[in-house]
């Protein structure tokens, strides 16, 4: 209707070239899809790499990334940058989704080890040179952990095993696994701090 249209204004949002992650999350909270697209362009590769490492299945990894970014969209208004970086938050949400999907899939299968493909070859994204330095630093820190501690972290985080599953897998009491996981993460943090 002409009368209605006459009293409406349209706001065209210009797409800026470079904005901080925090600003992009704030824009997501305001319902700006371009902002989510920009976050995906920045962190989608890291998210997919992590999801694929956990899920070891391209389809599941894709689902995890999709559900993860939808979670970021929905949670954007609650995000508090003082609690950690946007990238860490996105990766944490995607990781949670990946672990959920893997557990559901494992529960569905009769033999969870069946038809799990080898992990896809990892490729560096050229714009992530700094991130690759960071990866080397973290790899070095993980190398310094005692083997048993490194194993529980890898099995818990990358293989998505619960503490009970870890106890079964390693044939050790649940209490031992809990203590070791606690100690391993604490030790990793100490080593990373020593490296700074």
């Amino acid at each position, binding site marked *: 209707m002409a009368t209605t249209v006459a009293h409406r*204004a349209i706001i065209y949002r210009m797409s800026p070239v470079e904005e901080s992650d925090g600003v992009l999350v704030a824009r997501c909270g305001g319902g700006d899809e371009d902002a989510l697209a920009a976050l995906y362009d920045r962190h989608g590769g890291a998210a*997919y790499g992590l999801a694929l490492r956990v899920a070891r299945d391209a389809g599941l990894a894709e689902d995890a990334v999709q559900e993860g970014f939808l979670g970021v969209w929905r949670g954007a208004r609650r995000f508090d940058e003082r*609690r950690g970086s946007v990238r860490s938050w996105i990766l*944490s949400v995607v990781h949670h989704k990946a672990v959920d999907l893997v557990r559901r899939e494992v529960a569905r299968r009769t033999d969870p080890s069946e038809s799990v493909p080898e992990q896809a070859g*990892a490729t560096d994204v050229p714009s992530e040179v700094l991130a690759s330095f960071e990866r080397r630093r973290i790899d070095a820190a993980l190398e310094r952990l005692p083997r048993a501690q490194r194993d529980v972290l890898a099995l818990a985080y990358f293989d998505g095993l619960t503490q009970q599953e870890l106890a079964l897998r390693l044939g050790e009491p649940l209490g031992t696994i809990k203590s070791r996981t606690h100690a391993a*993460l604490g030790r990793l943090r100490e080593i990373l701090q020593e490296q700074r």
Partner: protein
Amino acid sequence: MTDHDEIALMVAAHALNALDRADERRVARHLATCKDCTRAYRLALDAVAALAASVDPIPPPLGLRGRILAALPAVTADEVVIDELAAQRALRATRRWRATTAATAVAAIAASILLAAQHRTIDDLRASQAVVAAAGPVVIVSGSTGHHVLLTTLKDAPAGRTYQVWSISPGTARPLSLGLVAGGGTLRLGQALPAGTTIAITVEPIGGSTAPTTPPIASVAI
């Protein structure tokens, strides 16, 4: 072992997403009331973030980006359509700029700019522009008057430089300068921009250029 000690031992596993659903809920409930464990949980998350960062990025499948964007709940699109009269009423009623969302803030400020544009008194809007800093630069088109107004929310241009605004219209040989604008400024773009015009901002030497000399830092098709 007390309940607290037992849960404190599970905080690391919680940060690793390595608890089953029941334990996860139990730890989450505890974290809501225990400051010590919340602090420990944040530290654990830092270490977990390092684990996440240790993984090589892999380019995601090509169609995934489009599928994610298509699946977003339709809250707001690029074009935010506002009711000018309602927004102006809201603006007069509240004036305090306590807008709760970026979209509300943009609508309120758009209304004030349109009012100003219509009355040729664009003046002290800078304070209110801080509210929309998260929204990025916007071009606002009034349905009632056809005024096009650019509202920038950029940092000041580097020393010796200024922002210059261009229109690129279909059938026009080269970009047409619409004027210079400050980082947190407004610029009236006129009333008769042809459909399909692209508005772009570039960084130029003080005084402006006759044609863009740098790639646009922001652009939008009207």
